Structures are given as C-alpha cells and as structure tokens.
C-alpha cells in the first residue's frame, strides 16, 4: 500500500536510539568535564585536559549523534535500506571502548599501548560505519546534492580518523618526520571542516527544507559551498601537514570563507521560501549555530593570517575551536535533535493510531517552555565562554561552563521526556 514511500527503508529505531542515547551521555560528560577543567580554556591548545575535552565533545557527543542521524537519513532520503544493521551494531561495539579508552588516555596523557589500542578500535569502528554507509549510498538510484555532501564528509572522516590513529601512534613511538602539531591541525581540520561542516551543510539543506516546508530548486550556492569546503579542507591539510606554506594557508582560508558564505546564501534562500513562518526553538538553535559558524570562520582566518601577538594567537585558536565544536556543531545538533527525535518517536509509537484516534503532532511531544529555557541557557553559556576565552577572564569562563552544563542537563531531560512519550 505504501510502496515507494521513503520510511519503509528506515532502520530499526533501537539502532538510532542507541547512538542518540550514547551521544546525550557524551554531552553530559563533556559538559561536566568542561566545568571541572575550565582552566584548560587558556594557554596553548596542546595540553592534556584540552585534548581530553575536545575528544570527549567530538567522540562522546557529536560523532554518535552524527552517525545515528546518518543511519536514519541516508535510507530515508535515498530510498535504500542500510547495507547491514549488524555491521552498524558491530561498529558501535568497537566504538564505545575505543572512544572511552582514547578520551581517558588523553586526559591522563598516557601514551602507552592503551592509547594506540583505543585509537585502533576507533579507527576500525569508524571505517566500518563509513564503509557500510558508502555501500548503502552506492545502491541509491540518484545521488542528490545532500548525497554528494554526505559522501565527501564520510571520505574526510576516514582521512581524519586515519590521521588521528597516526597521531596516537606517534605519541607512543614517534615516527612522523614533520611536527606533531602540524599533523594535529590537519587532523582537526579534516574532522571539523571536512567531516562535520560538510555533513551539517548537506543535511541542513534537506532537514530545513522538510521542517521549514521550504522548496528551493536552485542549488548553485550549495554546489559552490560543497566544492569550496572540499578545496579548503584539502588545501589546509596539505598546508599543515607538508610545510605550512603561507600561500596555501591563505588559499585554504579563502576557500573556506567562500564555502561558508555560499552555504549561508543557500540557507537564506530556504528561509525566505519557507511556508512555515513561525520560528520554533529548533530553528533558533540552528540560526544561532550558523552565526557561530560565521564568527568561527572569521576567527580561524584571523588566527591563520593576522600578525597577532602569541597570547592573542592562543586565545583566537581556542575561541575558534570552541566556536566550531561547542558553538556551531553543538547548537545545530541540539536544534535538529529537537526535530528528529520527536518525529522518530511519533513515527514508531503514534503513527499506528493515526485515523483511529486523536494523536498529537510530533512537535507537541514536548512543551515549548522547557525547550526555550534550554535554548536561552545554552546560548548564554556559549556567549560567556566565547567572551571569557577571548578576554582571558576566568570567572566568565566558569560562569559560562556552569550555564552550558545546566543547559546540557536540560537537553537530556527534554529528550528523555520525548523518548518516553506513549500514545
């Protein structure tokens, strides 16, 4: 009766819920660790507590949510089932001990075989996820703009995880001929710019179109952004790993700026064509995240190109990293979770009753007030942290971390409320 409709390709809800649950636990852990180690947000970025914090945020929070969302989105949008749910579960089984081990070794800066083994588990897990999703995408009849973004993002994730494994091994037994920090910058940009930014951009076109009820057929800015961010990531990776040629860095920063600008133009078109005029909390998070992306791009460019004193260079580098992972990525992920999770819960628990009795809309599974409260807390925390980092003001950073932590607890509470809703 529903042949050809997309939802029949969706994987089991348990698979997605397991990844989302892991991600929310990671957010809580990362937020608590941020309060515990707020002092890490000053000085040079290469310090154990900061490496631990960043990897907790990325591996504990952002990657599980991204992987869970990909396993839902790819089959639904491209109308192909996930190649193997078993492989996804196996990858998760490798991922959890790998991530926990790597994060723990980073915080303690223990560079023994435990670090290398954890990084190896992570590499195996991520490559399993990537292979499974790429094989799934290869079976799609048509690869759209979003599909091209997802493929590119997965390739960059494969590169970023390989670089990460090499860095872990190099900490244990140095073998790299170039500066470890250059590889670290390459690894961070392959993951942050290549994987996360491309993934968010590509998925945003699709999800915002759905959630704003917006139809835009002209996708040229989106295509420009895809090309520019890929060029930027490749250029910066080469520049960082193979010598730091200033001309290459300038070219990479310029390409990234073009990519971000083109993306924002495409989003503006979607926004202007929206049929749903009332902006909800999810959109406020998303809009704020794009603002953080713009500021982060400016800070990254300034950090790479402007002749700043050493102390300012450190602050700009920290602010840039925080705005990308704690500002842009965290905001956009929270915003989209407020859309995706209610829809999944609604689809699996409420949809069988449509037409038989009154069922709430997906957006009614959680009242607006706790979402708004969480939104205000989180963006106040992000603003205080960003200003505290830029101004090197300890108390402001502590206040920001406390607000951010409280907002994370509210995220968990809100998502748990949605998850437990029954008809």
């Amino acid at each position, binding site marked *: 009766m*529903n042949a050809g*409709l997309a939802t029949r390709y969706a994987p089991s809800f348990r698979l997605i819920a397991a990844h989302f649950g892991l991600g929310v636990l990671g957010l809580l852990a990362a937020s608590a660790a941020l309060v515990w180690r707020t002092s890490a947000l000053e000085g040079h970025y290469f310090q154990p507590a900061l490496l631990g914090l960043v990897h907790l945020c990325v591996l504990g929070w952002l990657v599980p949510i991204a992987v869970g969302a990909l396993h839902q989105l790819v089959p639904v949008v491209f109308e192909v089932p996930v190649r193997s749910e078993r492989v996804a579960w196996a990858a998760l089984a490798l991922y959890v001990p790998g991530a926990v081990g790597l994060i723990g070794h980073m915080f303690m800066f223990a560079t023994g075989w435990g670090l290398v083994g954890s990084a190896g588990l992570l590499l195996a897990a991520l490559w399993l996820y990537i292979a499974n999703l790429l094989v799934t995408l290869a079976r799609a009849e048509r690869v759209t703009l979003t599909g091209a973004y997802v493929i590119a993002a997965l390739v960059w994730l494969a590169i970023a995880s390989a670089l990460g494994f090499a860095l872990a091994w190099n900490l244990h037994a140095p073998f790299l001929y170039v500066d470890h920090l250059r590889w670290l910058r390459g690894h961070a940009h392959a993951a942050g710019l290549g994987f996360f930014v491309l993934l968010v951009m590509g998925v945003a076109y699709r999800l915002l179109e759905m959630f704003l009820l917006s139809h835009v057929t002209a996708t040229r800015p989106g295509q420009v952004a895809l090309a520019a961010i890929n060029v930027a990531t490749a250029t910066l990776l080469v520049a960082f790993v193979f010598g730091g040629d200033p001309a290459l860095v300038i070219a990479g920063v310029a390409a990234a700026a073009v990519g971000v600008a083109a993306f924002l133009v495409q989003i503006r078109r979607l926004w202007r064509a929206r049929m749903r005029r009332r902006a909800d909390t999810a959109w406020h998070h998303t809009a704020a995240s794009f603002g953080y992306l713009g500021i982060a791009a400016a800070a990254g460019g300034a950090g790479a190109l402007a002749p700043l004193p050493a102390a300012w260079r450190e602050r700009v580098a920290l602010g840039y990293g925080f705005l990308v992972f704690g500002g842009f990525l965290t905001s956009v992920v929270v915003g989209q979770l407020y859309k995706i999770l209610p829809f999944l819960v609604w689809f699996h628990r409420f*949809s069988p009753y449509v037409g038989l009795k009154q069922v709430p809309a997906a957006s009614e599974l959680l009242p607006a007030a706790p979402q708004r409260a969480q939104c205000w807390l989180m963006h106040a925390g992000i603003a205080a942290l960003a200003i505290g980092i830029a101004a090197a003001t300890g108390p402001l950073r502590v206040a920001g971390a406390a607000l951010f932590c409280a907002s994370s607890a509210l995220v968990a509470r809100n998502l748990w409320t949605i998850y437990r809703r029954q008809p």
Partner: protein
Amino acid sequence: MIEEDLRAALCEVMDPETGINLVDLGLIYDAHRTGEGAVSVTMTLTTPACPAGGTMIDGVERRLLRIDGVRTVDVELTFDPPWTPDAITQAGRAALGWA
C-alpha cells in the same frame, strides 16, 4: 471534489510535522463514493520523499473506514499536479503563521 462527510473525517487526520490536517494543507485532491461502501481518495504529498507519507495514507484509510457504511477505501497517490502552497486553505495558512 470532496464529499462533505468525508471532508469532516479527513480533517481529523493530521500531518505529524505541522499538526495541520490534510484537508487544510491541500493534500486531498478528491474524495468521493464510487459505489456502495466504496470510497476513492486522490491525494498528494508536499514532496515525493515526505517521510510521513505512508503514515498519512494509512491514516486516511483508517479514518474513512470508521465512517458508517464505508467498507473499502482506495487511496491513489499522485504528484500530478504537484502540491504547491497555493493549495493551503486560509485556516492552514493561519496555523502556519501566515498573516
């Protein structure tokens, strides 16, 4: 053409994302009786890849089967003509926040 009692029933089937019923969203093109106990519905979706499409079609069938005398419901999904915002009713526009 949508018969009045069928329209009233279909107004109880909501789009899960917007919370607006399918009639006010302009997704129902036609709903009428074709014989004794048989109803035919022609409807569309806002986009062919709408993730809630199957649910809405099932909801239409289930709701209409609850009407006294209706024994079979045939739902035809069409994208010709494609749905456009012009199909949204005044009530739907108000619910979407349009002036």
